[in-house]
């Protein structure tokens, strides 16, 4: 199936997201769609599949103009979108998920379970995976869920499959499997739009690359005719200097001391300290207990024993409001679920933890609120037309800046950043690093939990490695290497 989108415009309210995008997808090609968060990739694909209606422009499919009314109609016509956030009914079985809304029935309306099972098995075989169809979808790994989504797409006889960050949650082995599937789909003439931030993957699996920036198509090139640097340059629109800005602050006095923090089944005898102006990186495998330690430290979860000392004084932190009062800020790994109130404006989000300081006499002083937020927007280079717009309309990187900004108002002593650059594009990542530098220059102590080793190595002054709920080692910036961290993280000496 050939898809051609020309001069597409789309705005949400006053937010112009697409400004004349062109995109062409050929028969049986794997076409990478790249661009920073907020460049308009997903929006463009949503316009194609009819979730959004375009404001302007033409879409032709196999040479004929065609506009779908909704994703279901697009699916019936062979175009399937596998979203980044998987649409699973976690309490239903794999089989029920696969056939939801298109169950096979007997003339009396009863379900033809046997036939459906056979069909499901056929698709799973094609993908070379074995997932029991009676399993609850919620108990499947994210990789398996991804495969279920792909199987679902295959069952609809898709001619075009759009994959949005399909590998974000997959293991190395699952990724390889996915690539095998993509290759065989290609042979069958299926076209694939592959949206991803991962350069290596793109260059392994894709035939052509289209780069988008600020709602426009910057360039489309065949993979052999381009390279890493060129793509990044086009995405960002400028030369990228080194990925990590230089650390400038030097650590001062000890601010936070954690002594013997223990919670049965989660972490054990955790001891560490953080000095003012210092960034301490927490590394470790998924599930090692890093996030759990931070949640307990911030009063979100309880712990069994241990002490927390701030500036030489023992403090009690049983609830987050006590943590905030003591000068702790927590930027959690899930900014949409825990970091932001999506319907709130930038302003309302940014002042939330420090609300009372804007209302010394009980009434909120809107002018000082506005001035403060204006200052933060400027300092953090948040891209937004006004402080009154809802944060839900911002890109991932800008949302993350808002989450960090809201803690500046409390005058934090310690900031805990859990995966601070997850789902954030290259350009915004660097801005967030810069911001961390700025904060430490002002004496803030930062704890950074990160699963990205380069980030841990690039930004930390000191690195603590967590393995099975214990701190298995401490490395200075100078002695730390990826290998050393991985050895400690996997329990080696």
């Amino acid at each position: 199936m050939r898809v051609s989108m020309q001069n597409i415009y789309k705005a949400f309210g006053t937010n112009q997201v697409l400004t004349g995008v062109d995109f062409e997808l050929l028969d049986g090609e794997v076409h990478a769609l790249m661009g920073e968060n907020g460049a308009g990739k997903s929006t463009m694909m949503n316009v194609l599949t009819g979730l959004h209606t375009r404001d302007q422009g033409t879409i032709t499919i196999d040479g004929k103009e065609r506009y779908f009314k909704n994703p279901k109609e697009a699916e019936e016509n062979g175009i399937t979108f596998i979203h980044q956030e998987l649409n699973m009914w976690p309490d239903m079985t794999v089989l029920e998920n696969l056939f939801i809304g298109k169950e096979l029935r007997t003339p009396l309306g009863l379900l033809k379970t046997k036939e459906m099972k056979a069909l499901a098995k056929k698709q799973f075989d094609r993908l070379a995976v074995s997932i029991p169809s009676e399993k609850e979808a919620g108990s499947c790994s994210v990789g398996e869920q991804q495969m279920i989504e792909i199987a679902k797409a295959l069952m609809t006889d898709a001619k075009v499959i759009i994959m949005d960050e399909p590998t974000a949650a997959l293991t190395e082995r699952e990724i390889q499997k996915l690539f095998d599937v993509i290759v065989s789909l290609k042979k069958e003439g299926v076209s694939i739009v592959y949206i991803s931030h991962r350069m290596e993957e793109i260059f392994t699996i894709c035939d052509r690359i289209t780069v988008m920036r600020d709602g426009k198509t910057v360039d489309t090139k065949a993979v052999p005719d381009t390279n890493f640097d060129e793509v990044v340059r086009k995405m960002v629109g400028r030369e990228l200097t080194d990925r990590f800005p230089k650390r400038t602050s030097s650590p001062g006095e000890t601010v936070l001391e954690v002594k013997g923090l223990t919670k049965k089944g989660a972490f054990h005898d955790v001891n560490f300290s953080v000095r003012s102006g210092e960034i301490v990186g927490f590394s470790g495998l998924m599930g090692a207990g890093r996030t759990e330690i931070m949640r307990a430290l911030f009063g979100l979860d309880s712990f069994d024993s241990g002490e927390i000392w701030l500036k030489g004084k023992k403090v009690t932190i049983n609830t987050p409001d006590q943590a905030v009062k003591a000068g702790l800020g927590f930027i959690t790994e899930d900014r949409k679920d825990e970091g932001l109130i999506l319907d709130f404006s930038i302003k309302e989000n940014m002042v939330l933890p420090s609300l009372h300081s804007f209302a010394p006499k009980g009434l909120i002083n809107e002018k000082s609120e506005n001035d403060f937020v204006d200052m933060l927007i400027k300092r953090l280079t948040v891209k937004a037309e006004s402080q009154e717009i809802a944060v839900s309309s911002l890109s991932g990187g800008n949302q993350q800046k808002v989450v960090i900004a809201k803690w500046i108002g409390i005058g934090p002593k310690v900031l805990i950043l859990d995966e601070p650059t997850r789902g954030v594009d290259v350009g915004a990542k660097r801005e967030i690093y810069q911001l961390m530098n700025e904060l430490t220059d002002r004496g803030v102590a930062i704890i950074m939990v990160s699963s990205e080793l380069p980030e841990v190595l690039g930004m930390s002054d000191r690195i603590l490695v967590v393995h099975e709920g214990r701190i298995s080692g401490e490395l200075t910036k100078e002695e730390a290497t990826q290998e050393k961290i991985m050895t400690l993280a996997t329990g080696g000496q």
Partner: protein
Amino acid sequence: MNAINESTKAGKTNFVSTITQKLGPLLGLIILIIIVSVLNPSFLEPLNILNLLRQVAINALIAFGMTFVILTGGIDLSVGAILALASALTAGMIVSGLDPIFAIIIGCLLGGVMGIVNGLLITRGKMAPFIATLATMTIFRGLTLVYTKGNPITGLGDNYLFQLFGRGYFLGVPVPAITMIVTFVLLYIVLHKMPFGRKTYAIGGNEKAAIIAGIKVPKVKVMIYALSGLLSALAGAILTSRLNSAQPTAGTSYELDAIAAVVLGGTSLSGGKGRIFGTLIGALIIGTLNNGLNLLGVSSFYQQVVKGIVIIIAVLLDRKKSA
């Protein structure tokens, strides 16, 4: 060039949509008033308008509290029962010789305590607000019947201030209407100009994020249910004064009228979105319907049908607007 045109166009529609969103319920009220007064011009007579304001006051007061509750994503089904129990207790205190105004104040505080019970069940007991307040609704209703033995409490004396509270006029305006307006202004300030209001919206918008931002969510919730109980008791005091007695079955299904007023005012039942001004308008819409349909001689049976239809239309229009 195109893009610029597009964005200004988008800006304009956005402006229009915020206007309709803010004024939607008000527009509805105005249209309703026009229809009713064309059908029966006596609707607009000052006496009738003042009468309408007095009739609206009780539902509006309850609905103001309900607005806070619903903004947090909760619901309070016990308001009508709190009204009845507080009213009976107040009347009981008056009969036993307590100064009526003092009795009203204590009655309101007792309403607040009943609200605190709701709040604690929801926060400490981690119960769904629907279930918790459904249970307390039954309990408060039952307690009212126990206390009154199923009979009205009468013989409340002739204290002037007490009678003024539900029946009187001040500068030509019914006192209940004044109570309603003063309460509205105070709550408007709390909701839109004070940290407490911002926290209310934050809890409804994303409770987890609110907790992490250091908001004492359980405390705020308990205060909100207490406010709802207190306002219900205040409405009960007005009713007691107006009827010069406490009825054991007073306030039956008032919770539904209050929820209807909140929803008509454009507040989302899922929390986080809405305005107390909308609730005032919502209460006035319901009041106008009641009053207008009476003036037009529509039977009370049909009135219920019409009210239901109006709610459906209002919600449908609201849906269309936000789409």
